[in-house]
């Protein structure tokens, strides 16, 4: 760490450069998420809305570390999710008595190792060419988990299913339990990510993103940090994949992690905001919740009067138009849009 040379302290001069405030809004949000929601939320909200939203946010976070912070475009996100899911499943199945957190972390670690391997080409190639190698990773990994029955314990249908979800003897199988498991993982990993991007590692990543030649000139080992970004990103994606399979779907096959999932996660970070932690949550909410909202509205307003197929297509059209509109309005993502809105509200009713 570099040391900051502050001017010699005078009496009464603040030593901290930034005012520290108690993070009350965050505390309230967490209290609501951890206490109020599992207490009040019904199965539909937990199973169908909040759990997938949180897992997709985590996956977006993983990809954002690689793409948004380090500037390495990847369309293989779902492949690494698959590694995490199948690895966690294999660990729980073949290592008796392994506690769930270790299995998730183990799945993440194996995904990180795989990510490290697929990150090697980033030494030499960048941009679109690197994107194509991650595409290869996506198809290769999907193929591996279809081809070799060992990965899915020789099940006739090629699917893995969630093992017993237990933590310290507590059964997490009820929706509230699975929700808390996901929320706990997401909170912990988000906290780690926030600190990671503020640390030297994060600053190095951003330096590489902004201009890798310049980063190399000031002495950052560019190749190593790129590979590290691949590994850390894959760790996050691996944990997200395991949660997707166990806590959300309850089952998974290679098909659950196809190229469409990769695109979905890429859209989350593009729409939410590249290089932003909170942007992942906003993007995931947009991608996963808005279609549901449109569907409910469509069903409520027009259900029964309009041909059901047309209604579905109409929702797709509205969703697509909204994506384009938001991106035209603010290419830096929804998080930037919200930030601008907040600034304006602060000065309201005056204009700036």
């Amino acid at each position, binding site marked *: 760490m570099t040391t900051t040379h502050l001017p010699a302290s005078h009496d009464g001069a603040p030593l901290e450069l930034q005012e520290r405030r108690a993070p009350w809004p965050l505390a309230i*949000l967490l209290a609501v998420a951890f206490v109020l929601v599992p207490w009040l939320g019904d199965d*539909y909200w937990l199973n169908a809305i909040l759990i997938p939203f949180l897992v997709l946010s985590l996956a977006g976070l993983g990809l954002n570390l690689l793409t948004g912070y380090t500037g390495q475009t990847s369309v293989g996100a779902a492949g690494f999710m698959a590694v995490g899911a199948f690895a966690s499943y294999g660990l729980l199945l073949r290592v008796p008595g392994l506690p769930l957190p270790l299995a998730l972390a183990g799945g993440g670690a194996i995904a990180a190792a795989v990510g490290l391997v697929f990150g090697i080409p980033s030494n030499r190639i960048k941009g679109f060419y690197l994107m194509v190698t991650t595409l290869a990773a996506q198809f290769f990994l999907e193929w591996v988990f279809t081809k070799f029955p060992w990965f899915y314990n020789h099940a006739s249908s*090629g699917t893995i299913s969630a093992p017993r979800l237990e933590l310290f003897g507590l059964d997490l199988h009820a929706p509230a339990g699975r929700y808390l498991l996901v929320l706990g993982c997401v909170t912990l990993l988000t906290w780690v990510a926030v600190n990671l991007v503020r640390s030297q590692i994060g600053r190095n990543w951003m330096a590489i993103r902004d201009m890798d030649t310049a980063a190399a000139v000031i002495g950052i080992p560019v190749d190593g940090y790129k590979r590290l970004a691949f590994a850390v990103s894959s760790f996050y994606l691996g944990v997200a994949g395991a949660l997707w399979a166990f806590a959300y779907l309850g089952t998974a096959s290679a098909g659950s992690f196809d190229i469409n999932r990769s695109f979905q996660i890429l859209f989350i970070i593009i729409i939410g905001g590249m290089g932003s932690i*909170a942007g992942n949550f906003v993007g995931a909410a947009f991608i996963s919740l808005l279609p549901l909202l449109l569907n409910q509205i469509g069903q409520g307003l027009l259900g029964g009067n309009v041909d059901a197929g047309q209604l579905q297509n109409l929702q797709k059209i509205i969703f697509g138009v909204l994506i384009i509109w938001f991106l035209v309005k603010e290419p830096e993502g929804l998080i930037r849009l919200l930030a601008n809105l*907040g600034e304006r509200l*602060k000065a309201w009713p005056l204009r700036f």
Partner: protein
Amino acid sequence: MSSSLKRKLAVALLALGVHHALPGSALAAPNEQFFPLATYRVGAYASSGIPVWAGMIDYLRYINEVEGGINGVKLVWQECETEWTAEKGIECYERFKNGLDGAPVAVYQPNGAPAAYALADKAAADKIPLITLGYGRTEATDGSVFPYNFPVMLTFYSEASAVIEYIARREGGLDKLKGKKIATVYHDSAYGRETQGPLALLAEKYGFENIQIPVADPGNEQSAQWRQVRQAKPDWVFLRTWGVSTPVAIKTAARFGFPVERIIGDIWASSDEDVLPTGPAGKGYLALTPYPGGADFEIHKKIKEHILDKGKSDLKDPKSFGSVYYNSGLVNAAIAVEAIRAGQARFGKRPLDGDESRWGLEHLDIDDARLKAIGFHGLMQPLRLSCSDHEGGGAAKVQQWDGSSWKLITDWVQADRQTLRPLIEAKSGVYAKEKGIAPRDCRADG
């Protein structure tokens, strides 16, 4: 400041959402049974789905309007788009599982393999039976481990066995299979691989040569596979493709000179949509199906009279009336209706909940007389389920494409289910062990 504001907004939104989610006061229960329809009208498989939903809705409408409901209990239904995915399938299930305006859910049809797998545990926890006709977990046939899963009529295992039985019939007996070559050209996915286990077992038992040739998804180029077929010179080809890979397979086979009359398509390669694009190459193609095409069955006359001719049908294209997929919708709906009826016989003529209709399904006995009464004779096989057997039938008919329509060329070809049962029990045993499920005792359940 802006970020704190955002968070406040988020909290407020969340609180609103949670408030909205609180269950409203229970209304007086109406005398209605909710029939959730998890459909796919958009996405890659929409074209096959649309006639299925038409079949289902037409039958439900027929039951309501002509028969006055099931013993007076009217059916209400609502659609939810799944796009054939697991995620949307879960969302629909969670939306529907508590019923609609007080009308309870009796049975749930996930209509899509990914959703069926994802819902298996959830439905068991909620005590709602899942009916999966022609797809879903084969090992769920063992109802002692899977009390709420019903892969009725024809699992992939039975399908493999039925094909072998049919080939034996053509060859002149099971003993004539010895030394024959049977190639399976399959879609390289979980679905395509599912018949490998049973075919290996049957090959060992009957002494035929079992050749497995995978087609990678999506399968729109199959020269390599059919060159392989030509080299192997099999006596029969069992075609387990789906979607675009089926017409491509038939056309490529013709190009390589493999006789189309020796290709037997499986349940997902047996629809009109599979053969129409093949033109003359598909003439003579055989396919196996538990719900044959045709509009001459008794039920079609009734539906035509009461629904179609009165303009109440959900069918957009009247030409699809009697197509394989439309008929599959009829059969799916009929099984659910008959299960509710069986449950009502015990629990009273009122809307049933999931557990009561599970009882109904496990005591479902649709014999020939019953099939004639409901107009499904010939379209649907006799079906008898029990606690330990959630499949029931295990038979299929073989139909042949004559260039413009399907012609049935056999009666029901029965699978040899006894031979395959140990395979199923081994798989369900593995599942029970993995999940820590204690199989229930089916003798106690009567």
